């Protein structure tokens, strides 16, 4: 097994997206918000197309549509015009402004432009939240977390009343995940603010009236009192030290609890333990039952899985969660790869599943699909777990791809994939074990109808 990652100058088939895309998705999870990119027109259009292909929802991202003269003289006037036009057409409660590599490089001072805007413009003025997202620094996950941090920094307050309820900052998870997390909180009778909440905005229903801004998202009123919560739970350990949760802790003394994504039984148990502590109540029967059924299915399926070798890729925190889950069902992660580069991926994986793994997997950051393929092909894996972009590799190796995360561009329902908690783990378990069973069935010339 290769213990050194390949080291090429050029990036081929990146396993990451650019920072503003993450920010745009985070802003889509806030009630009444329109994401806005301060840059040239192409950025917004490319990202819209990319996001639409996953969620199958209208994704309106506005742009300053900068041209050459703005690049020379500054993008301030177009930013102002753009904000006015978005306000006139969408009447948003909030505009989430993310910069791009262009405006960061020409040195546009967005904070100053917004002050001027506030001073000079009369009439309807939505809240403005801005985040610096130069795409030459970090990946879409930095953009996502930084946008969340900006929202908290700009809007969260406390009322100095008694603390109650919970803030949940789940990171970039699916609408189905968020719906499930909210259900859990409700069953724990825990008032919760999930930030961001894309459960409705990016997985909307057929509606009689076309919504300019999809309803749903974290209510602004709820964000404004996030400082009143008992605690914040943040999923993921690879984000920057300054995050939504850490800002709330520093400013309002709201305890910040960072957990790995609750994928697999062990990680989900930790999550439920925290919920028990915060709520002061027991784990509701429903989830004990879910857990019990999950253990039962682990046992039923374990022989199909033991010793199977997997390649895992995606955002770092997702990779940690998936690796821990696969390790606990007896699948051997061979390669854990991410395009991110927090410097913490290996340490997290070792900490989460060290003793479960007979052999240490190759854990590499800053990888692209060329690197991943090069290593994977030498490893003879049985399955691949990750987003749609690993399909060419899966096809080449004739092994199944278990589709998780973002983007899912080659199947329906990416927004409905459930990854988290006991129920999400059950879903992933069924997908993985059935892929292995199907492989065995398809390989056999007999044509068994029972396996």
């Amino acid at each position, binding site marked *: 097994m290769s213990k050194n990652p390949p080291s090429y100058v050029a990036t081929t088939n990146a396993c990451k997206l650019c920072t503003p895309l993450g920010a745009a998705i985070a802003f889509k999870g806030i009630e009444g918000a329109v994401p806005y990119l301060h840059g040239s027109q192409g950025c917004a259009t*490319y990202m819209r197309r990319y996001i639409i292909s996953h969620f199958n929802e209208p994704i309106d991202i506005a742009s300053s549509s900068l041209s050459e003269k703005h690049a020379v003289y500054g993008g301030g006037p*177009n930013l102002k015009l753009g904000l006015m*036009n978005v306000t006139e057409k969408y009447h948003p409660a909030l505009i989430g402004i993310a910069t791009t590599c262009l405006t960061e490089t020409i040195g546009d001072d967005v904070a100053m432009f917004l002050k001027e805007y506030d001073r000079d413009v009369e009439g309807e003025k939505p809240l403005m939240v801005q985040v610096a997202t130069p795409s030459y620094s970090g990946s879409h996950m930095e953009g996502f977390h930084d946008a969340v941090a900006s929202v908290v920094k700009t809007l969260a307050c406390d009322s100095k009343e008694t603390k109650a309820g919970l803030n949940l900052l789940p990171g970039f998870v699916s609408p189905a995940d968020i719906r499930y997390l909210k259900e859990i909180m409700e069953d724990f009778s825990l008032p919760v603010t999930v930030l961001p909440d894309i459960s409705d905005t990016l997985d909307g229903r057929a509606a009689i009236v076309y919504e300019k801004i999809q309803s749903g998202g974290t209510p602004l009123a709820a964000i404004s009192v996030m400082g009143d919560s008992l605690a914040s739970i943040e999923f993921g350990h690879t984000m920057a030290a300054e995050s939504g949760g850490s800002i709330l802790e520093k400013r309002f003394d709201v305890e910040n609890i960072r957990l790995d994504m609750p994928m697999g039984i062990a990680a989900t148990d930790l999550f439920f333990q925290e919920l028990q502590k915060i709520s002061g109540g027991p784990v509701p029967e429903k989830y004990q039952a879910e857990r019990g059924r999950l253990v039962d299915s682990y046992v039923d399926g374990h022989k199909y899985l033991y010793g199977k070798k997997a390649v895992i890729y995606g955002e770092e925190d997702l990779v940690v969660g998936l690796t821990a889950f696969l390790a606990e069902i007896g699948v051997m992660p061979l390669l854990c790869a991410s395009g991110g580069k927090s410097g913490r991926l290996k340490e997290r994986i070792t900490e989460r599943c060290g003793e479960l793994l007979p052999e240490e997997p190759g854990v590499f950051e800053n990888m692209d699909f060329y690197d991943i393929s090069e290593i994977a092909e030498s490893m003879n894996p049985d399955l691949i777990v990750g987003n749609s972009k690993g399909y060419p590799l899966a096809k080449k190796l004739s092994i199944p791809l278990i589709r998780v995360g973002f983007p899912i561009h080659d199947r329906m329902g990416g927004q409905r994939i459930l990854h988290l908690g006991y129920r999400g783990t059950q879903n992933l378990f069924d997908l993985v074990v059935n892929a292995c069973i199907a492989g065995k069935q398809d390989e056999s010339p007999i044509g068994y109808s029972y396996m």
Partner: protein
Amino acid sequence: MEPLKERKEQIHRSGEEPFTLVCNKDSLAGAVSQRACVFCGSRVVLYPIADALHLVHGPIGCAVYTWDIRGALSSGPELHRLSFSTDLQELDVVFGGEKKLSAALLELIERHNPAAAFVYSTCIVGIIGDDVEAVCRGVGKTTGIPVIPVQSEGFKGNKRAGYTAACNAMARLIGTGDTRSISPHSINILGDFNLAGEIWMIREYFERMGVEVVANITGDGRVADIKRAHGAALNVVQCSGSTMDLARMMESEYGIPSIRVSYFGVEDMAQALYDVAEHFIKDAPEILERAREIVKEELEQLLPRLAFYRGELSGKKAAIYVGGTFKAFSLVKAFRLLEMEVVMVGSQTGTEEEYRELAEITDPGTIIVDDTNPLELTSFLEEKRVDIFVGGVKERPIAYKLGVGFCDHNHERKEALAGFSGMLNFAREVHSSVMSPVWRFTPQRERLETVPELLEVNR
């Protein structure tokens, strides 16, 4: 819904006098244009050159969003389906990206052995001032292959400027190959992107007519073919917006005339074959004879099969929003062949003359629109009670949320819609969306069915 006031002059309704429509201007800030940028324009045109290396010089976004998203097929090498980037980082932006670009080029050329390399400049390359031209020259010398810079900084104009940048890049290749052995009855195919293998079908028609195709420049393209493209007798240009510049350059440089065609729809497809044949009529009248035979043969097969779809679709309403107007013209005619009514037609990059023509050939009241956006599209579709919307991925969710059928006619599609058999596929695509039983459950349709007088008012 009222459009923004700066947008009003980019919308026209056929039959209203006088015709005025402003176009080819920068997208309005904050209007959520469906357009992309200069980079997109050049990436689109050069993308199908399958044996070239396409390196995007900039941070990761531009490369990753254009990784294998177009259905431009290759009959051989598939280098174009990979996404290469210099993935510039903060330090590169501060100290310049030239060294990284040079190293990346050398590494990739050694690894993939391409016939040529295109280097796309993205927004910040234009700002940090990398001398891409010099790096390309240096690497070209070292490796012995053409290494060609594409000046595609996103903010330096719109998609059209990107087309020009791509044509400029290709013009550097043309004229460097051996043209002996090329038939006097020969053409280049420009502006067909070989989506779902369309160019193979078109090539076959021409070859059956006895016309040699020297280079299919923008679909299943090869560097060696493009190098000798100046040996062809005629340039046959589809999607004139994207490659007309190249045709003009080849006319002034090499005296090669060009004709504009479209391969979409029966009329335009047949006309394309006839126009090419007419060009060679003096010394090869048999080419026209063969073209007629092909058209006859194809129509005999197609028309009876099309009759079924026409019967089912007759009277339904269609809206069109596409990248370039050439496709819009063909689609208007194709819908007419299906006896459907076009009630809205627009494009991202049309010219005033093209829009004027569209206004002339469409029925009174048809909305003609340049560089529109989701909210305008929504109001047009609602106002006109459209049954099918033809567009690309960004337009799809708008149609579906409104309970309107959709046909993807953009570069990601996997269905061949050009040529005679493409017309049948098109009818089938439209039919499979319009006639699907799922619409009865959408709230819009439910409302119409429970309140029938609404139907009357809106029909």
